[in-house]
């Protein structure tokens, strides 16, 4: 229950360790509902002590995938393994995993204490031991003062904690969280995200979380799996998902991004030169192997672009002139939509470093958008 040191945290990448045994494993799992395929031939490994997030648009099969770990849903094809055991057909009540439901699913006729004790009672644990464990869970989730309350006498945040306490009480091998923070307001959500991370580190339990809030996934997770229509598109650390998305779908789904479509001109020295239909030259450092004359997309996050009144670039590439189309002032930063002369909208964000600016860039001004060779990436699909 000790916090890992910074060095340990840095090293925690069991998915890159060929000797590591996965804790949860999906082996070519398919789930059909009638003629509809919710999960499509999906393979996935989740490791011990990992905080794993499933991210994807509504209806992509996240909940279905999670319910297959819990046992509420049997795969149509393929196998689910847990800690070296095939659990594909094991009933839910025998699985050493617990789930925290999106609706919390607290038993309304029991108080919080009884709710937490429920799972322990099923194990035929001794009374005194149950009381100890319940007390421990109440302290862990800071719910000591609410032990005797019924669920309908709690606020949304308190219910969330109670549900968390109940699902942690049996010390499961894996804790499944289906949009656990969906019903909380923004501030409470952010607080709870950090508490969840803290809990996960202290207890050393593997967490598998479903969310469609990408910021949440980036905050809490060691690895994120991006799903679409029952398929895994990419699994990577939050940083890699953001900075090195595997394709345009992931790049677009996680965060904002600008795409510039063009044809690869030269690909020497890990520098790719792209020319667009309207003559813009983009140079980009990239290790990707790209053929000459291949159709590619240059992708750059808004914060990697700069907006200025003069063209700061000498070489003639990586800069485009346009007109300020829209400005959104968000407090910590400003968000510009620049309409290039070719009619394309580029998103640029800039931090508001100083509180006062003499002449801020304003609507309909002519400006340049520019970027460095490192600002973006080249995607082929």
């Amino acid at each position: 229950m000790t916090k890992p040191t910074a060095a340990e945290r840095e090293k925690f990448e069991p998915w890159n360790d060929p000797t590591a045994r996965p804790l949860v494993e999906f082996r070519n799992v398919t789930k059909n509902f009638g003629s509809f395929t919710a999960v499509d031939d999906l393979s996935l490994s989740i490791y011990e002590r990992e905080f794993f997030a499933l991210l994807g648009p509504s209806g992509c099969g996240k909940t279905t995938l999670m319910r297959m770990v819990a046992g509420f849903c049997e795969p149509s094809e393929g196998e689910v393994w847990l800690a070296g055991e095939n659990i594909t057909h094991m009933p839910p009540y025998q699985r050493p995993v617990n789930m925290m439901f999106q609706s919390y699913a607290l038993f309304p006729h029991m108080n919080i204490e009884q709710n937490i004790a429920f799972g322990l009672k099923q194990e035929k644990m001794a009374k005194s031991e149950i009381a100890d464990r319940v007390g421990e869970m109440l302290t862990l989730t800071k719910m000591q003062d609410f032990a005797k309350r019924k669920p309908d006498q709690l606020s949304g945040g308190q219910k969330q904690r109670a549900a968390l306490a109940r699902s942690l009480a049996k010390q499961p091998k894996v804790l499944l969280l289906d949009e656990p923070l969906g019903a909380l307001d923004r501030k409470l959500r952010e607080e709870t995200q950090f508490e969840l991370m803290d809990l996960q580190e202290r207890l050393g339990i593997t967490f598998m979380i479903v969310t469609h809030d990408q910021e949440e996934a980036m905050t809490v997770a060691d690895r994120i799996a991006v799903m679409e229509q029952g398929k895994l598109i990419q699994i990577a650390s939050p940083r890699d998902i953001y900075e090195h998305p595997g394709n345009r779908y992931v790049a677009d789904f996680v965060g904002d991004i600008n795409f510039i479509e063009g044809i690869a001109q030269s690909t020497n020295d890990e520098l790719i030169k792209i020319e667009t239909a309207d003559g813009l030259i983009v140079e980009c450092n990239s290790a990707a192997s790209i053929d000459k004359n291949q159709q590619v997309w240059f992708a750059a996050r808004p914060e990697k672009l700069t907006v200025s009144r003069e063209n700061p670039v000498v070489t003639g590439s990586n800069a485009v002139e346009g007109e300020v189309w829209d400005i959104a002032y968000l407090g910590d930063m400003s968000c510009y939509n620049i309409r290039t002369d070719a009619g394309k909208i580029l998103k640029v964000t800039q931090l508001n470093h100083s509180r006062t600016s003499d002449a801020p860039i304003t609507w309909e001004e002519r400006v340049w958008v520019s970027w460095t060779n490192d600002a973006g990436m080249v995607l082929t699909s």
Partner: protein
Amino acid sequence: MSGDVANKTNDGFLRRNLIGKATIWLPYIWLLLFFLAPFIIVFKISFSEIVVAMPPYRPIFDIGDGITQLWQSFRKFSFENYIFLTEDSLYWKAYLSSLKIALFSTALTLLIGYPLAYGIAKSPRNIRFILLMLVVLPFWTSFLIRVYAWIGILKKEGLFNQLLLSIGAIDTPLTLLNTNIAVYIGIVYSYLPFMVLPLYAALEKQDETLLEAAEDLGCTRLKAFWTITFPLSYPGIIAGCFLVFIPAVGEFVIPYLLGGADTLMIGKLLWTEFFANRDWPVSSAVAVILLLILVLPIMYFQQSQARAQEAAK
């Protein structure tokens, strides 16, 4: 002009207010007219003496007598009818027997109604309505006719015996009609919808994820039913049992038509006192006691229920 508009909105407001008040008071007015008023009349008759006249009792007082006469009339109050009820063991035996029959048939109705309601609540949404309609369907024919139909089924040469004979389950026909068994069958059959509907309402609104949560925490399906579904359906069980038990205690038609000579039920006795013996005062007293037997426990139950809810807070 503007005053006119103001008047109109004011009118509308008043009317809405009145309608609002009326809807609140309507149930009370209803109960007052059709429950309390008849009860007061019965209550009054129960304190009077029997006479050979029309109506067959000596009124204790008339509204027309005025206040001065009222005291006089109070002195005429006689508890004789109530005393008579305690003296004749037939009455308390009938009360006890009615309570026993009602209790057993309520338990039987619950036993049959619960799986029925559960099955309907768990069935696919699109056929749920049809199943519910089937439960209510018997209401479309007269209660009397349905009870008569049971005579046809249960009598010696009736459908049921013929069926058993034809499949060789029995050699001689069973005597079912005019026994307590027939009364139980009649009550369970007649009151089943009153049990099923509140149970269905309680079961249908239950959150399916609660059962999943229970299973997730290590409960088998069966145990999850007993620890989650069943306790959460208590309100439905209580409502259903009251709806069956209360009318069953005072039931007259079913024991009269299906029961035997030894089927002792207070409803039957009341009927005899009222129509055969034309003893209105005694039968009124029987009715008043019956009401007390039912109302007092219910009131006590409600209070303990409210207290339990308070304690939970």
